[in-house]
């Protein structure tokens, strides 16, 4: 029987009506997309070979050096596997990335050249990732740079979900944040696996005897004590409660966007899109795509074996679907308030190795993508591929500090000037002009205010 009481309960906790409403904002009379921006940081783990994703094109003076350094791996200019020309063939996007090419030529994606962390130079994946994500250039901390962005973002007192780290384990950039939900799959993120009879309201069933309490509603009483582990438990219970009303299975992507069901990356982007449209207050999100450490058998789009191309296709299709899904008009123009930045810990050695692969390098590229990106352009300089132009004669030089790109996203899109607090030791920020928005004087942050003692 479905009585009024059950109806109300399912509306609030079971999620049916509100979950559907999450995808139909106009039903509530909203007239604009979210009143705040969301920054999505995509981390390509393993050191993505930037010279294959974004290779010198036919009119690029570095093409000859590139072909000479990459006899078997070079992305061809013509024929099978030819790269997709952009910027008057100065550059070629990988042929498995037509979605990214369309975004680029449509002015919604920009590429930052020579991107990376200037110092310390490390060819260790794990050091490089930790340095970049902690944002402290080699100094330990245990708090990620995005956590410090959130801490100083001057957010409203109550925000349902300020941050999501997609996965089982929190990205280092969001370490230490008590406001972050780490989850791999929204639909799985609920404790509904217990016995039918005691999986009861306010848990997941709608009919139960009066007074009956389920496992999920008892858990907080077990995690009530002081202590760091108990605090983590309470944060987890918060997260489960916040996610519980959301029906992830009912979500229908807009504008014909198709998220590949076999791609965990695409499915996590879909989860983020739903949260963005639900207006849960999402300011930052992290999402990983691994498998880029191609020391051996990197493959080539000109051949049937194209390992790197398979990874690029997953990246491109996922981001293409994400943008399309968010790219409505008027009140549904979520793309205008969502910016994606794609990064990796370093680029790979210019010269290919003898195993059809590439080794750890230095400079890479970053992608910036979204409705408020001044796209269709490259940003930053490219130092060139001649031996004398390379770092130690071997690697693409880092010419654009990744913190400069991130700082611009934080200032112009998240409207938070405290980039020197997010990146201690960073100074001299000026915008490259990648993102639309208003400049604010970059500043550190007075920790007293950051801690809420105003």
């Amino acid at each position, binding site marked *: 029987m479905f009585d009024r009481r059950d109806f*109300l309960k399912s509306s609030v*906790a079971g999620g049916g*009506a*509100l979950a559907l*409403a999450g995808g139909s904002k106009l*039903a*509530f009379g909203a007239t604009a997309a979210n009143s705040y921006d969301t920054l999505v940081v995509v981390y390509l*783990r393993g050191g993505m070979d930037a010279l294959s994703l974004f290779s010198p094109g036919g009119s690029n003076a570095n093409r000859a050096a590139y072909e000479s350094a990459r006899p078997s791996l070079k992305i061809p200019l013509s024929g099978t596997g030819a790269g997709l020309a952009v910027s008057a063939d100065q550059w070629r996007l990988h042929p498995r990335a037509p979605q990214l090419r369309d975004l680029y030529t449509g002015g919604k994606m920009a590429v930052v050249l020579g991107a990376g962390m200037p110092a310390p130079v*490390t*060819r260790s*994946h794990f050091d490089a990732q930790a340095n970049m994500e902690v944002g402290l250039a080699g100094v330990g901390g245990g708090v990620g740079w995005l956590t410090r962005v*959130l*801490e100083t973002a001057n*957010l*409203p007192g*109550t*925000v*349902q979900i300020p941050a999501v*780290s997609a996965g089982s*384990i*929190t990205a280092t950039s969001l370490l230490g*944040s*008590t*406001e972050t939900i780490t989850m791999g799959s929204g639909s*799985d993120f609920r*404790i509904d*696996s*217990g*016995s039918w*009879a*005691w999986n009861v309201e306010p848990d997941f069933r709608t009919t139960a*005897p*009066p*007074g*009956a*309490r*389920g*496992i999920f509603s008892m*858990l907080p009483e*077990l*995690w009530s004590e*002081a*202590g760091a*582990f108990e*605090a*983590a438990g309470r944060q*987890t219970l918060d997260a489960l*409660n916040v996610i*519980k009303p959301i029906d992830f299975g009912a979500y229908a992507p807009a504008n014909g966007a198709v998220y590949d069901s076999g791609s965990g990356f695409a499915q996590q982007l879909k989860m983020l899109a739903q949260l963005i449209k639900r207006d849960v*207050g999402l300011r930052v999100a992290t999402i990983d795509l*691994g498998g880029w*450490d191609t*020391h*051996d058998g990197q493959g080539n789009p000109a051949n049937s074996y194209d390992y790197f191309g398979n990874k690029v296709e997953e990246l491109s299709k996922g981001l293409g679907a994400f943008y399309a899904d968010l790219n409505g008009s008027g009140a549904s123009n979520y793309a205008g308030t969502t910016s994606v930045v794609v990064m990796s810990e370093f680029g790979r050695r210019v010269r290919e*190795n*003898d*195993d059809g*692969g590439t*080794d750890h390098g230095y400079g890479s590229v970053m992608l910036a993508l979204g409705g408020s990106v001044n796209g269709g352009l490259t940003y930053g300089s490219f130092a060139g591929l001649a031996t004398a132009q390379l770092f130690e004669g071997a690697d693409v030089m880092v010419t654009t500090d990744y913190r400069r790109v991130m700082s611009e996203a934080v200032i112009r899109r998240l409207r938070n000037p405290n980039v020197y607090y997010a990146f201690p030791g960073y100074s001299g920020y000026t915008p490259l002009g990648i993102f639309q928005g208003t400049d604010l004087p970059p500043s550190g942050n007075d920790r007293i205010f950051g801690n*809420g003692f105003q």
Partner: protein
Amino acid sequence: MASVFASQVVSRRQLIQSLAGAIGAIDPVAMRRPGKPSVQAPKAAPEPNLAMPPPTVRWLQKATFGYNFFDNLALGQLPGATDDARWANWVGAQLDPAAISDSACDSRLAGAGFTTLAKTLPQLWSQHRGSTDYAVRMRPVAEIECATTIRAIYSKRQLFEVMTDFWHDHFSTFGWDYDAGPLFVHYDRDVIRPNVFGNFRTMLEAVAKSTTMMYYLDLYASSVAGPNENFARELIELHTLGAENYAGVMDPTDPSLPVGVIGDGQTARLKYVDEDVYESTRALTGWTLKNGHWQYPADNDGTFVFRDSADWHDRFTKYVLNRRFAPDQGQQDGFKLFDLLASHPGTANFIARKLCRRFIGDDPPQSLVTSIAQLFQNTWQAPDQLRQVTQAILLSAEFKNTWGTKIKRPFNALVGAVRATFGEFVPTLATYGTEWSTKDEINSRVQQAGQRKFYWPAPNGYPDRSAAWASTGSLAMTWKMLVRLTEIRQQVGYDSARPNVIDVVGVTNATFPAASRTAANIVGYWCDVILGFRPEPVYTKALDFLRQNATPTEVLVLNEAWAGGTNPNLKNHYTQSRLRSTVALILCSPDALRR
């Protein structure tokens, strides 16, 4: 339903508030809310008011895959007048695993229908690495995954299993790598396990030569014509000196780089730079496999081979950590490199800290790390080096006196729950038509929690710091797995005709005659077997949940039925599943998940 609301001119917030008002108070669910700090407080040490179980319970929680009531009883019966004396005897016995009878575990393994665990490397090579049928190809790693779980739960050689887990993490490979997976039986059985209580230098060389690692980090393809630095870089950064001894991209002759006497009595540079990676790469060229290479098509059984020909091994002088490797030394270059790394104080410190982190805390005391590192270095040539090192950690005051500094990682939480509750979970590759097998379901759930065995993609192994596993994603999915564990059936999880993995009701009934089945007795018992003590608030909250409106000492009837009418008497309502859910609550408590 949305159309019902569409005509109402209210904001969503107002709507939620009005609905909330209609059904009574609900929590204002928001991750950010007034009064809640946005950044975690720095870790307080020691944790405030942490309830501690008795010493032997603590030690077993930390040194095994989880406390088990009967293991603790057996420990109590070992010779010795004190807990410390009995613990020393327990550790001593565990360090000689071959002397421990393991028939209960062995018979489960024997009955599981595994077909690859006894195959030789050449058999694995031809029958699995040579197959393009994915299920056949990957059967070795799939069976090792099952066998590892069975051993973690049932083996009496618990310390051996825990250390096997540690060294698999240290020399981590992605088990499902298309080339490495078919050989994984060899890696687990012949490379990791024989050396767990042996000598690090020996294990290091065995790993380098192993077919699985050769493929995972590309050493098999490294020749003088085409050197591949992948293995050499991780050999130094992850297997030996550690990133803590990486000076970055620097000139190796930079005078700021420290030099000192190392374990072999000679001097060496104490920090490494990229040149050491490249020079080590050169030293290891020619270390490859009989993999049917076009130059040697007849050599094709997957075993290690060193090739000293001019196009494979770099014959010229190498300089690693300020040591000169003379030209034309062939395979000796590699042996010399492993000697250098295994006797280096950087390695000793890195490994000692990792071992102490596993057993004592995320940031173990430097004094203990230093003394363990000294022992590691002093015994670097001893055949039982790792036995001595492991023993020293487990008998240290720091091990004995710390509690709750670590949390059980998801695989440990799973195995620990089955061990504590006398469960029967014997994962096999058996299939049941289109039904989801219990093995597949559990593997999926531990994967969601973030720690499916042999599934970490990067060569640094699963994290061993609490921050990783205290994330909402890992902790929530660990709870979900543990709750499910109290309901799931053997072999086919949702087949109600099959017995439960954890026989909560049967064990309870066997323990207490009907007249003694009070909530207080039952909850006390399950706290004792799962936690080894009855901490608050777990005991009282679990008791309240089980008793409902009964008194703690009132006898419960264990039924599985609606207690009648629209307003049933809750104390009689679905008591069997309530009992299982009570056990789930205890399994999900902080006291069950810390170590």
